[in-house]
């Protein structure tokens, strides 16, 4: 492995996670940082750090030519994009390939196929993967007919959106015309492509996703599912593995469906196939595929014992998967809380600033992935994630009590954080009873404010 040198094109906790995985493999690292990130933990851990641009991410972390140039000029053989930023850009994968740099992720073609949500939906349909009723409509008349057919409420989604961006909920036929034209023009201006499609709206659903992995030798496997229903504005707040609310039958259907999609794409690297689970009807429907390492990957690592980032690196270097499907077992339960520098008492306003105190608890069954250290100046330019607290237990109740205790003992001073919210969620009877669906948190926050 020592012949490889990896360029890390990201920041924050995931940069540290990747640097650590490389270090354990004996692989040298170069970290590209913005001018605002020269004193981050990642910059201390990397073998070399280069300043790729100013604080503004469009001129640094989001500049494809700059990142590739920096990787080449520093003698790197591979580039890890992390999550967010450029991780799902086919252009980056292509430019890496053209310049002999291994892109640590799927191919440009796979990124393209999955970036188009309508194409991904059609692929899922062709494979018999369960799907919410819906489809493409070229004109308003077609959209009206389709909406009548699948029944209101419907969601209008942008083909090139994702993660909740570019979506419009339409409750009645009277609202469709306006929502349709607004959604198309918003999609056009936000994603450069006004293609939208319709889907039946599932009001009460759990978010469930399957971790898949594939190597360049045709081996593919899934590593079980995660549940990420605790969300605010489509941003995940708490994730867990496995999903305790699934029947054995539905779990099997879920895993098989995810693998079918991965197999059809000859998928290479880490990927996540997302589904909604209609709790009342006990019905799964495919959502989208995220072709990258996920923020919530540690919960899968906790219950399977597989180091996903290590596997992802080895696969990129051409190694075969170190395990087969039959070797994958899920034991125990893991819960991850995303700690963010946001003030839940002030409408989640970001709260950057000097971190005066950062004392994660240190006991058994815990993991903290973070780039924060005491004295660190949390910058205002990027996302608010400070770290992830992962609790592991023999079953769900055990895992819940671990994270609750850990949240109570976690000391942070300086930026205001969402710790009180995480405590309220994990201490809530609905969370303990595992009845939470994707709209639950918004309701719970409103209640806390007005009730």
């Amino acid at each position, binding site marked *: 492995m020592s012949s490889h040198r990896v360029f890390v094109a990201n920041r924050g906790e995931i940069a540290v996670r990747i640097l650590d995985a490389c270090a354990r493999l004996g692989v040298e690292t170069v970290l590209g940082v913005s001018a605002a990130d020269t004193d981050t933990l990642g910059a201390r851990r990397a073998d070399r750090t280069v300043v790729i641009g100013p604080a503004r991410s*469009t001129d640094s972390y989001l500049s494809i030519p700059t990142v590739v140039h*920096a990787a080449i000029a520093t003698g790197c053989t591979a580039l890890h994009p992390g999550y967010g930023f450029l991780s799902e850009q086919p252009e980056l994968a292509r430019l890496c390939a053209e310049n002999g740099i291994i892109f640590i992720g799927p191919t440009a073609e796979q990124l393209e196929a999955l970036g188009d949500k309508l194409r991904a939906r059609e692929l899922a349909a062709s494979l018999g993967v369960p799907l919410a009723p819906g489809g493409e409509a070229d004109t308003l008349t077609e959209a009206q007919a389709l909406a009548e057919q699948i029944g209101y409420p419907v969601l209008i989604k942008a083909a090139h959106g994702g993660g909740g961006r570019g979506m419009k909920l339409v409750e009645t036929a009277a609202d469709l015309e306006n929502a349709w034209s607004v959604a198309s023009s918003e999609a056009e201006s936000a994603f450069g492509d006004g293609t939208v499609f319709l889907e039946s709206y599932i009001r009460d659903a759990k978010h469930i996703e399957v971790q898949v992995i594939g190597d360049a030798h045709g081996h593919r496997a899934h590593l079980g599912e995660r549940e990420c229903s605790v969300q605010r504005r489509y941003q995940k707040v708490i994730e867990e593995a496995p999903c305790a609310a699934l029947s054995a039958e539905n779990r099997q259907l879920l895993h098989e469906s995810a693998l079918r999609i991965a197999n059809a794409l000859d998928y290479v690297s880490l990927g996540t196939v997302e589904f909604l689970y209609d709790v009342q009807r006990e019905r799964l429907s495919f959502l989208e595929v995220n072709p990258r390492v996920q923020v919530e990957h540690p919960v899968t690592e906790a219950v399977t014992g597989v180091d996903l980032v290590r596997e992802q690196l080895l696969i990129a270097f051409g190694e075969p998967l170190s395990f087969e499907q039959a070797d994958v077992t899920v034991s125990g339960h893991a819960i991850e809380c995303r700690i963010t520098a946001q003030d839940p008492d002030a409408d989640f306003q*970001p709260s950057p600033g000097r971190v005066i105190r950062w004392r994660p608890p240190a006991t058994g069954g815990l993991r903290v992935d973070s780039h924060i250290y005491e004295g660190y*100046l949390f910058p205002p*330019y990027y996302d608010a994630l400070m770290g992830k607290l992962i609790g592991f237990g023999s079953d769900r109740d055990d895992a819940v009590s671990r994270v609750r205790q850990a949240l109570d003992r976690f000391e942070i001073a300086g930026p205001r954080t969402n710790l009180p919210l995480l405590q309220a969620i994990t201490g809530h009877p609905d969370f303990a009873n595992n009845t939470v669906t994707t709209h639950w948190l918004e309701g719970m926050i409103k209640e806390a404010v007005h009730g």
Partner: protein
Amino acid sequence: MDIDFEELAIFIETLENTDFTHFLYEKGDVRIEVRRGGAVDMPAPAVSPNSVAAPPSPSALPAAPAPTPASAAAPVGTAATAPVHTDGEVVVTAPLLGTVYLAPKPGEAPFVEIGSAVLAESSLCIVEVMKLMNTVHAGTGGVVTAIHVRDGELVEHGQALFNIRPDAAA
């Protein structure tokens, strides 16, 4: 509403270059208020003036001074492309990361040498990013007193390239 960090950063960066004491922006339920000059009541995690300066770059270039120590919205670091004064000399820094070329074409004479007289619009070098050539101009009329980089090496964003002693008239 959500405050977009990046938008906020752009706001602050833009404001930094303007002369104001009180700025108020309202749109829908978004309200951004920035004051500077004079004491400002700040919550505990306030950015202290000492923390504002960018950390030294590998070239040991003194960081750009913080624009306004009393500013409530003092940003982390400043535009690294802004010339930095040291002992009356102007340091020309790399506006972006790339490979630096000191001559217009391989084998040709360099744009400038130590002792060359330059005008503000004179070309000093090229910074190449994935075959895209970006010309770096002097920005100040004067005499080149130092060249900090070698032809063909990687320069980072904000790295010192040249020193220029400005013309007395400038």
